[in-house]
């Protein structure tokens, strides 16, 4: 054995690991429909990584026994890191696909897929993947799969998946406005790149699914107690909430329908502000931040409304009709033009009006909304 034996051993091991992973993807136990949507991506990335690793192996073999190995190790580490990312997505797919087949997701992934395919078709930005369960929502750029939160296999968090689709749209649509804005903004603060990506995704989700996204965020996701804290990757919840509500108002201004979302936006804002005040957090956003957010929103809303107007949510009136059925403890009868966001908006509207602690009503709403969404998803298949 020579000093480069360990390096060669590990390189060979990596090559074998990739072969094993490719073999696992051929398993007949995996859902064919899902596999077809992602197999090519994994195969391309894994085979490329394998070839580069094999090429590195050949180079290392030629290194004289007494020559330094630091460059070779560095190259291997880089390849292994890239390979690990693909393998991680690979395993997530395998497990996610099996979970869907075994019903661990209670069918929510199929419903989410249907909603997101519908939105991506309207946006003319085809999203070729699917959703899988995870411990939290995110969009994996490498594989394109969108994670939805496990255990919350109900309709209440579904609008958040539209936010994740927004991340995909940001990369896939044929417009450079966001990229240009990011380039300018990150000169002032490097965090603004991540913030703008989040704001864009919020903009898309609100634009595409209406008040349901705003209600999900305000009532079930954003924490008032830490609303003014900005992170490395996410803007402050207070800024996001402002942005989302202002998007609803921007839609009203754009469509000339002044009160379409005015009332619901006002109600959500009232609840959110009340929670902020209760937690002794100021409801006022710093004027400099507000000016910045205003400028960003104006620019991004304008281009979204111009180039992706087809994806704008247009079902609010129908959602209110459905909500009326729900209030009367009746399941709405689906019509030919009904869409999943209509059901989500109706359900959230009723839930936001419900008395606190009325668990039975919430359960009833959730179950019926889920059934309606599942029916719509099946019809779309």
């Amino acid at each position, binding site marked *: 054995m020579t*000093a480069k034996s360990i390096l060669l051993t590990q390189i060979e091991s990596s090559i074998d690991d990739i072969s094993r*992973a490719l073999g696992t993807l051929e398993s007949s136990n995996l859902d064919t429909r899902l596999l077809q949507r992602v197999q090519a991506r994994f195969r391309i990335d894994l085979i490329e990584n394998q070839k580069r690793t094999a090429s590195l192996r050949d180079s290392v073999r030629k290194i004289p026994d007494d020559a330094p190995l*630091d460059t070779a*190790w560095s190259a291997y580490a880089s390849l292994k890191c890239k390979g690990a990312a693909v393998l991680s997505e690979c*395993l997530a797919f*395998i497990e996610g696909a099996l979970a869907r087949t075994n019903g661990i997701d209670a069918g929510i992934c199929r419903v989410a897929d249907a909603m997101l395919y519908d939105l991506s078709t309207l946006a003319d930005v085809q999203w070729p993947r699917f959703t899988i369960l995870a411990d939290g929502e995110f969009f994996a750029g490498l594989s394109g799969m969108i994670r939805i939160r496990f*255990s919350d296999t109900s309709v209440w968090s579904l609008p958040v998946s539209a936010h994740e689709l927004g991340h995909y749209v940001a990369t896939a649509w044929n417009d450079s406005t966001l990229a240009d804005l990011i380039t300018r903004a990150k000169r002032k603060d490097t965090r603004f790149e991540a913030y703008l990506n989040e704001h864009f995704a919020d903009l898309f989700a609100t634009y595409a699914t209406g008040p349901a996204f705003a209600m999900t965020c305000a009532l*079930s996701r954003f924490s008032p107690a830490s609303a003014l804290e900005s992170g490395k990757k996410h803007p402050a919840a207070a800024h996001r909430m402002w942005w989302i509500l202002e998007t609803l108002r921007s839609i009203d201004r754009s469509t000339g329908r002044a009160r379409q979302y005015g009332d619901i936006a006002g109600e959500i804002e009232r609840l959110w502000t009340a929670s902020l005040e209760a*937690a002794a957090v100021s409801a006022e956003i710093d004027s400099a931040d507000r000016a910045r957010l205003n400028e960003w929103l104006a620019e991004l809303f304008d281009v979204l409304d111009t180039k992706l107007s087809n994806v704008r949510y247009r079902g609010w009136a129908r959602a209110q009709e459905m909500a009326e059925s729900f209030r009367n403890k009746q399941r709405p009868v689906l019509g030919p033009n009904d869409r999943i966001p209509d059901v989500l908006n109706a359900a959230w509207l009723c839930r936001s009006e419900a008395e606190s602690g009325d*668990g039975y009503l919430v359960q009833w709403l959730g179950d019926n909304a889920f059934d309606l969404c599942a029916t719509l998803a099946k019809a779309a298949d």
Partner: protein
Amino acid sequence: MNDEILQLRLEMLKEDLQAAMTIKGLLTADLAALSIQTRLSDVLNDDFDRFADKLQDDLADELAKLPTIDPADHDALREAWHNYAELRERNAQIHREFLEAMLGLTVRCKNLDNSFCALADALILSINRLHLPDTLAIPASHEAGSRTLARLVRVRFPEWTIWSLPLVAHEFGHVAIEDAKELRDIARTIIDSEAVADPQWVKDPQDEQKRKINQAIRQRVECRVRHFLADVFAVFTIGPSYPCSLILLRLTPGGPNSSGNEPRDIERAEVALEMLRRMAEAAPKPTGYDVIIKTLADEWSGMVTRSGVAPLTTGDEAALKRLVGQMEQNLKDSLGISRYRANFPGGGGWNTAYGWYQAWSAQGKINPRKLPVPNDITRASRIYDALNAAWAYRLFEKPLSLEPVAEATRQLCDKIIKARDEVASREGGGKAGGG
């Protein structure tokens, strides 16, 4: 007056937790489908029940408190939100781990891992001389490096070969350090003394900043000590195959790449080698240990030198050797379990492994493409002996192809598990799964 959003959040958390109770049913079904013994199923369910029940109680308490909070009492409301955030995180942790278990089990149920996780379960069972509650091996993108809520041992995808199997012993070590009071005490004692000995430790911190310095030191020391102890535990319980897998397949000269608290790979290599050196001093001297140690040490140090990485200083080496000595002594004294040795009272041990290696070596000279599966399998046969035999063959014979010995070892492991299962079945204990 309630904070409406907080009330809604707490109720949603309650629904979330109730939805998670269905996990138990699915988990139990999957475990049954895998014929994983009832004891393990009970352990997982108990783990889940314990955490979920506590969380449910705490959630009920928070919901009950909410109407009593004076709306003008901002501090109380802030505290309520803070408590909610903590409950949400605990809820997320339960779901995260049980989702991992669920997803891992579905992979196992479909045998996409080619029963590798079952092998890992069997290896753990065989080294669990402390009779700790069972663990469950599941596929994962990376190891946890610490015990988690449920006793899950993560096996890195797709490194599912007999060569990487010994690394499972380190993962189990982390679980054991948490679960066995004796190991926990060993770890705590060492962490306390190492933290105080850190040059930046503040002897009598008077303010929050100095307390935070000590806290950071303690966290770093704790991470290092746990890793080292898990490494020592692994060599101690399964012998040479662990340092072989660790050094030849896992550690890199400049690793790890993070600026976190984990020890450097060159430190872990030294710890694993030092532990093996100590085991080589046993009487009678185990045949072949010296060759293994020399091969690993020469390979590793040659590689470190050629990689431009600064080697350990004499002082660092001496400190690590002292630490290993202390850990080894603690393991022997506190646990009363025997380390991996030439012969175990009931059978098995290095001499058995070496005998299997010698049989392969003899056959390999005749037909290196097909190695026999040993016939002398008894209920005392152990998976770790098979792994040691495999690594001995790999290092001593340097075969052109690893496939024949890998295949023979896999078959040997399967035979060992079958022998134990048959015995367990005859004794009426259901599937033992051990080896």
